[in-house]
C-alpha cells in the first residue's frame, strides 16, 4: 500500500503509462518460432513476454486418458520463476492450475475436437515476463500456435481485458491497474462467430459499468484479432516478398 500512486488516471485523462482509456498497449506477435513444436507463437503485450507451443494431435500418454470420440485437449499455463518481481516457485500454484483450466476452456470451443478421436493435443504456455493480463495474452498466442500446428479450427480465439481504474472504464490493464484498480474483466472471443469463450471478473462494477467494460474488452479483442491474423499470414507472406 505504501507505494500506491495517487491516481491511476491523471488530470488530462491519461493513464500511468500515458495511454488513453480505450487504448491497447503496444503488441508484437510472431508465429512459428519454436522449431521443435508442431505449432508456436510469441506475444509481447506491454511488458508481457509469452511463449506458446503446441504438440499434436498425437498419441495420448497415459493411454487410458484417451477418449473414443474426440481429442483430449490439455493446457499448462506456467510462469517462469524470474517473470515477476519476487521469485515465483516453479511448482504450479493454485492460480496456475485455475488459469490452465480457463485458458483450455477458452480455446476448446474453437477446435474440431471430434475430428481426431483417441489422440491428445498439448498446449504449453510459458510466461517469461508478466505485466498484467497474462491469461489474455496467453490465449491470443496459444490460439495462433494451434493454427500454426495445422489443427482445424472454427476461428482464432483472441482475448483482452477491460476494467476500472479510478472511476474510468479502461482497456487492456497493465500490472498496476490490475492490482490497484477497481475491477478486471478478461474476455476471450471468436470474433467471426461472436462467441465469448472466456469471461471472468473480479472487483466491483454496476450493471452499466459491467456492460461498458464487456463492450470495451470486445472492441479490444477485435483490434488484436487483426494483428493476430497478420502475424499468422506474415510467416508465409515473407517468402512471397522475396520471390517477387
Amino acid at each position, binding site marked *: *500500500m505504501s507505494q500506491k500512486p495517487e491516481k491511476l488516471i491523471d488530470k488530462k485523462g491519461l493513464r500511468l503509462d500515458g495511454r488513453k482509456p480505450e487504448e491497447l498497449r503496444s503488441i508484437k506477435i510472431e508465429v512459428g518460432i519454436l522449431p521443435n513444436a508442431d505449432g508456436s507463437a510469441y506475444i509481447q503485450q506491454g511488458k508481457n513476454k509469452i511463449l506458446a507451443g503446441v504438440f499434436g494431435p498425437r498419441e495420448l500418454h497415459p493411454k487410458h486418458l484417451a477418449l473414443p470420440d474426440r481429442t483430449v485437449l490439455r493446457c499448462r499455463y506456467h510462469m517462469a520463476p524470474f517473470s515477476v518481481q519476487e521469485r515465483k516457485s516453479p511448482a504450479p500454484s*493454485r*492460480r496456475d*492450475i*485455475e488459469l*490452465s*483450466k*480457463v485458458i483450455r*476452456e477458452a480455446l*476448446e*470451443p474453437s477446435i474440431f475436437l471430434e475430428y481426431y478421436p483417441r489422440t491428445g493435443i498439448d498446449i504449453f504456455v510459458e510466461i517469461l515476463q508478466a505485466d498484467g493480463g497474462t491469461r489474455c495474452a496467453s490465449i491470443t498466442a496459444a490460439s495462433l500456435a494451434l493454427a500454426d500446428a495445422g489443427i482445424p479450427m472454427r476461428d482464432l480465439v483472441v482475448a483482452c481485458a477491460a476494467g476500472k481504474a479510478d472511476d474510468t472504464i479502461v482497456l487492456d490493464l497493465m500490472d498496476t491497474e490490475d492490482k490497484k484498480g477497481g475491477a478486471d*474483466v478478461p474476455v476471450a472471443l*471468436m470474433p467471426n*462467430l*461472436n*462467441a*465469448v*469463450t*472466456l*469471461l*471472468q*471478473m*473480479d*472487483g*466491483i*462494477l*454496476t*450493471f452499466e459499468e*459491467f*456492460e461498458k467494460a*464487456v*463492450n470495451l474488452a*470486445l472492441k479490444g479483442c477485435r483490434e488484436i484479432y487483426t494483428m493476430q491474423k497478420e502475424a499468422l499470414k506474415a510467416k508465409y507472406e515473407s517468402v512471397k516478398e522475396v520471390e517477387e
Partner: protein
Amino acid sequence: MSSVIVRVKQKQIMDLIAKGKRLDGRGLTDYREIKVEQGLIERAEGSARVLLGKTEIMAGTKIEIGKPFSDTPNEGVLTVNAELVPLASPTFEPGPPKEDSIELARVVDRGIRESKALDFKKLCIKPGKKVFVIFVDVYVLNHDGNLIDASALAALAALLNTKMFNYEIEEDEVKIKPGYTPLPVGKHPIAVTFAKINDKLIVDPWLEEEQTMDARLTMTIDDDSNVCAIQKGGSGYFTPKQVLEAAKTAMEKAEENRKKLKW
C-alpha cells in the same frame, strides 16, 4: 454408475429446454429448494450446511493467528479450500486437489474477497506482525450439480456464524479473553450460476443438466446489485447478449437467495 449420461436423457433435457421447460418441472430461472442451517459443528469457529435440492455442502471456519502478507501488512488473511469428498459422488477420487476443486475454492474465495464481505482491516492485530487468518473449508457431501452456488452460500453462512475470540495484547503477546464477538461481515455476495443448454440459459443446473450443458457462467452479486466476480467454465461459449442477460437475471436471483440467510 459413472459420469456418463444416457444420450436419450440428454436429448430429453434439451428438447424440454427448447420449450422453456425442465425435467424436474422448474422454470428456466427457478432455483431448487434452498435450506440453510448454521452452527452444526461445535468445534469449528463457525459452520453451516446448505442443501440445494439434493446437493449438500458443509462449510466450516477456523481462526488462527498468523502473519499478514507483505503487500497488505494491516489486513487479515482469508483462505478458502474446497474438498470434493469421495463419498459425495462416484466421480470424486481421493488425493490431492484437482482443477475442479481448486476452481470451486477460488470462485468462492473471489466472491467473498472482491465484494469486500469481510472487513480485513478489522482482522489486524499488530500491523505487519500479527493478524487473524480465517480458514473456510468447503466440504461437498453430495454432488447433484451447481456446487458453486451452494458452496458460496455455505461459506458465507459459515462466516456469518463465526465467533471470533476476544483478545488483548500483553507485552507483545496475544492473550485470549473470555467471550466472543462475531466476524466483521459487511457484505453478502451471492453466486448465481447459469448453464447454456440448446442455446438457452437456465439457472441452478442440477447434475444431469450439467452433463448436458455446453458452458457454465457464474456471476456473484453483492447487496447493492453490483457484479463482483464472474467465472465462465465448460468448453462452450456465450454470446455478448447472453452475458448481459445473465447479469440482469443474476441480480434478481441474488436478491431472492440472500433472503435465505440470517444476520
